[in-house]
Structures are given as C-alpha cells and as structure tokens.
C-alpha cells in the first residue's frame, strides 16, 4: 500500500468530499493560497476556488459564527482553526450555539459542521500554541470529538466527520503532519464510536489517544521484550466513546493505563478510568492509572517542556510496576 503523510491524508479527504458534495466548503485564516501555516490545504484553492476555500480576517469567533449559520441553512462548512488554543476564542459559537441548536430546536435544525484544529506539545511553541484541549469540548453535549492517530485514521475520520449531521471537532496532532502511514487509494470511511485494537495482549491494556497511541505502541514493544503482553487500543473518537471495546479489554487484562496529552486533571484519562472502575471493578487487579500532561501551562524551554507529556519510558515503567503488583499512587 502507498504511504502518505497525515497532512496529505487530510488534504485528500477534504478534496474527495468537496468533489462529492458541492455544499462542502472550507473557511478560516490563510486557508486559500497559503494553504495554512502547516500547508495541509495546499492546492485546494486551485481546484475549488476562493468561493469554497474562503480566507477570513483574523476573527475566530466571527468565522466560527458564520460557519454555524451556514451549516444551519444548507451547507457543510469545514472550519479551520489554526491552533487548538484558539478554541477559547470560539467557545460561545461552538458550545452555546452549534452544540445546542439541534436540541434546543427539538430536532428541527441541524448544524453539520467540522471544526478542524490541532493539539500537541513539544514543538517549542509555549503556552498559547501547544495545548491539547479536547477534554474541554468533550464536556459539552452535542459535539462529537475525533482524535486521529495516523494518516490512515485522519483521512477516514475526516470523511466521516464531513458527512455527519452534527458539529464535529477533529484534533490533529501538529507534530504528526509529516508522519507517513499506509493509506489505500480506494475510498474508505472510519465510523465514529468504534475503537481500534491495534495490538492484542493479555497482561495489561494501554489506551491512548492521538499521538499517545504511538507512545503506547512503543511502550508495548519494550514490555514485550520483558515478557509483558500489552493490548493497545485507540478509541478514535472520545465522543462517542466505544465503551464496550474498552471494558472488554479491561476485563480481559485486569490492568489499564490511559494515556492522553490533555492535562491530567478533569480530563479524558479520568473519564475513561472512571467508567472502567464503575463497570469492570470486579475484574480489575490494580487501580486504573491515568497518564496525562502535567497540570502546568506548557513551558517554552525544551528542558521543561519535554517532561510535561507522557513518554514511552514512563508508560512502560508504570505498566511494569502494575503488572508486578506494586501499589502505585499516580503522581
């Protein structure tokens, strides 16, 4: 199978959906000729024109609001939010308007829009360009949240998101834009709410989101050499969450670590851990562990930034101790 980058995969997904459905359009800052700072959208304006690849002023709440109104009246906007950190700027339009419109109208109005944005630290971009804020929006009923972990996932999830009749937020890890993976030439979609078991195991379950899937896979490789068999699972979407697959694995291995790049407190790791505790308690041999980003604003200095996010070494270390039966109190 051919290998392409995550960036190319997203670009292909958008182009295919825009060819398929003339109501799909892209709106955001420097999305047209510039193709965004990450160049993910390069070439799209040449094919689809500036009517469908729409450059906006630097006004995140404004273009988010326009996308909500456009979605309510018969189009499918893909909003490009240059950095995930800018979510704080669009909160009213996303969470008070887009997320609630279908419910508040008793099901009469739909808001089929996609908000493409990114996440991920260690790019030396400091506290306002490095956050992973998916848990923040996952808290709001009415939004769906997708977290692709590879080029293959990014393409399939984006195509599904565009066809979904709800507001969907997709978080791409900005450090993965150049990562290549096998992506078929033929069309495919990845359904929401179906976790992917990347590797089967019997001793411990490692659940990772986005780039943390790679971290879990690397940890699993190390553990395998020591005779510890780890199961690695990617939920793909945290809303909807495939609880069934996660619980099934937890019951099988009896030990679980959840790894996510959002802040550890009040985050995705806590939510998943809690569901496993509530629904698989008698199958567990150890407390479910959370590994999130440190509860600090992301620091600029490389010496500090690198220690704020989970690494394969830390995941392997915690897994080893859990399997040995050590009583671990999470940091």
């Amino acid at each position, binding site marked *: 199978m051919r290998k392409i980058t995550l960036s190319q995969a997203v670009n292909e997904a958008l182009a295919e959906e825009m060819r398929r459905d003339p109501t799909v359009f892209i709106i955001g800052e420097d999305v047209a000729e510039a193709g965004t700072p990450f160049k993910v959208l390069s070439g799209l304006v040449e094919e689809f024109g500036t009517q469908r690849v729409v450059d906006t*002023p630097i006004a995140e709440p404004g273009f988010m*609001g*326009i996308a909500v*109104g456009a*979605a309510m*009246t018969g189009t499918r906007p893909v909003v490009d939010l240059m950095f995930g950190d800018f979510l704080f700027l669009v909160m009213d339009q996303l969470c008070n308007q887009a997320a609630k419109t279908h419910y*508040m*109208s008793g099901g009469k109005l739909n808001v089929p829009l996609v908000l493409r944005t990114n996440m991920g630290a260690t790019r030396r971009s400091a506290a306002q360009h490095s956050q992973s804020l998916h848990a923040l929006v996952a808290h709001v009923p009415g939004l*769906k949240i997708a977290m692709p972990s590879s080029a293959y996932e990014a393409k399939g999830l984006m195509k599904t998101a565009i066809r979904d009749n709800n507001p969907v937020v997709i978080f791409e890890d900005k450090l993965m834009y150049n990562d290549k993976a096998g992506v078929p030439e033929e069309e495919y979609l990845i359904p929401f709410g179906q976790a992917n078991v990347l590797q089967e195991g019997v001793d411990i379950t490692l659940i990772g989101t986005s780039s943390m899937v790679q971290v879990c896979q690397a940890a699993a490789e190390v553990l395998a050499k020591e005779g510890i068999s780890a199961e690695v699972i990617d939920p793909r979407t945290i809303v909807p969450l495939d609880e069934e697959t996660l619980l099934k694995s937890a019951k099988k291995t009896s030990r679980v670590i959840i790894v996510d790049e959002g802040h550890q407190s009040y985050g995705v790791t806590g939510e998943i851990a809690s569901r496993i505790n509530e629904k698989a308690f008698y199958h567990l041999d150890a407390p479910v562990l959370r590994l999130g980003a440190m509860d600090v604003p992301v620091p600029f200095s490389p010496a500090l930034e690198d220690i704020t996010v989970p690494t394969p070494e830390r995941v392997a270390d915690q897994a080893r101790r859990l399997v040995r039966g050590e009583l671990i109190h999470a940091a």
Partner: protein
Amino acid sequence: MSAAKKTHNTEDFLQMYRQMARIRTFEDNANQLYLSAKMPGLTHMYSGEEAVAVGICEALRMTDKITSTHRGHGHCVAKGADFKEMFCELLGKEEGYCRGKGGSMHIADQSNGNLGANAIVGGSMGIATGSAFTAKMLGKDDVTVCFFGDGATAQGLMYEVMNMAALWSLPVIYACENNGYSEYTRTEEIAAGSILGRAQAFGIEAHQVDGQDVLAVNALTEKLVDRCRKGEGPFFMELMTYRYHGHHVGDINREYYRSKQEERDWKENRDPIIRFRSWLVAEGIATEAELDSLNADIRADASAAVEYALQAKYPDVSEVDMHVYAA
C-alpha cells in the same frame, strides 16, 4: 405616518395591523401566564416594539431568514408562527415549536425561516451572517435579517461579522432595535459615539428609522431587501423604539433607571398600534368597528391557544436525551 407605497393594497395594511395586534395580544397573555405563575421560568416582553418586527417581516418572503433575540416573541409571530405552538413552547409542552426544549428564549420556527431566538446577547450575529453566506454560495436570492438590541452593539462578534459581510457583499440586514435600554442601563451609558457610524466604518450603508412607524419601517426594509437580492448588501438599520415592560417580566420596580412619566409618554403618544390604527381609519382603509372586530378575533384566538397549551401534554420523560445528536 409616512406615506404608504402605492403597491400596498388594503389587505397588506390590514395584515400589518393584524400582526402588530397579534404580537401585543400574545405578550399580554404571556405576561398573565407569568404573573399567575402558570409559566415556568421568565420571559422578555416585546410590547411597544411591534412596528419593528412587523414592518420588517412584512417585507420578507417566507424563504427569507431571520435570527431573533431573547426578546423574540414579536419576531416569531411576525415571521408567521402560530399562537398554539408558541404558547405550548412557552409552557414547555410537547406540541411546542421545539417540543418544549427551547422555551421562550429559544423559539425557532424553521418552516417560516426563523432560525431561532438566542439567549446570548449578540449571539446570533454570526448565524445570520452565515445564513446570508449560504444564500450567496448556493446562488439563492434569500435575504437574512439579524434582529438585535442596542445592548448587543457592545459585543465584539458584531464587528467581526459585519467586516466579513461587507468584504463579501452578503445579503444580510442588521436590524438594531434601539429601545433605549441595555437591560437596566440607559443606552447612552453603554454606547460611545454613534451606532450607525459603527456600521458605516465598514462601508455598510446605514439608516436610522422611527421604529414606531410601521409604514416607514416597511418602506425602508422593502428597498433594502430588494437591493440585497441584487447583491448590494449588507445594510444596517437602527430602529428607534421603546420597551413597555422591564428587561424581563420580573423587572417591575424600575424607577431607579427610568421614570413612569417617560413610559407613559411613549405609550400614550407614540404607540405603534394606536398610531397605525388612526391612520387606517383616517385613510378610510378600515372602520373603527372593523378593527375592533379584528382585535376581538385575535383575543379569542389567543385565549383558545392559551387554554389549549395549559391542557396540553408535557413531553414524555424519554425525550430528555433525544435530539442531543442528529441522525
């Protein structure tokens, strides 16, 4: 009253009168439901501002869109909604426009192009502009009117979307209902400079109009809607009007921010319905008796709708998690 356009016939004028009277009657009934503790929550009365909603909506087609506000019953009625579904919604009943999930502050009636009231002040400005974006992108000649109050002119979103609407020549009309008060504060205390000047700064043609004169509002709106359909939008209107009640129905003792004398003056001397009624009679378009009979019919309709809504079913509890996500 301003001179009427020749294109209007008797039925057009009576329809404007009927719609204004329907709004006033709706609000009188809603207020009674609140005062008699039959309505959950609270609500914001549109009484006094009828000529704004009616003058504008009578210049629109059913397929044109509007976005409304927390003070939105008037817009909803003017855009074609029925009393029965509206009162059911206000009382949280299953047959309400939103199956009781929205209530007074979120009534939407998409079948008549009402994209919904909004409980965030200024929250619908993006939505209205986006609706106009859709019309342009899909090549339709629909126009969108964004209703908002003077209080919303302090929100930043307004300036972001007016900038884009002007850059892209979108068919949207920003209709600022200036009723003199931003909640419990006089507009002069929250608005620096000129409200019209803010739109003009983006190169948007802006007009101030007497919002108590339904014919003046209607004539201006017809011109602007027509020009919007030809791609000459966006436009901005500041409609000078007055809110008879407090900010909401519970805002009873309000002399600390405005006098009873001021309220009396607007009600007695500038009421949009009384003024239009006198004009209709003076022009020989309707007799006092005909208008009395029309009012009596509207009151009977409203009473029947209120009675129906009071007896109507609440939604089944199984609906609580329905409509969180669309299929």
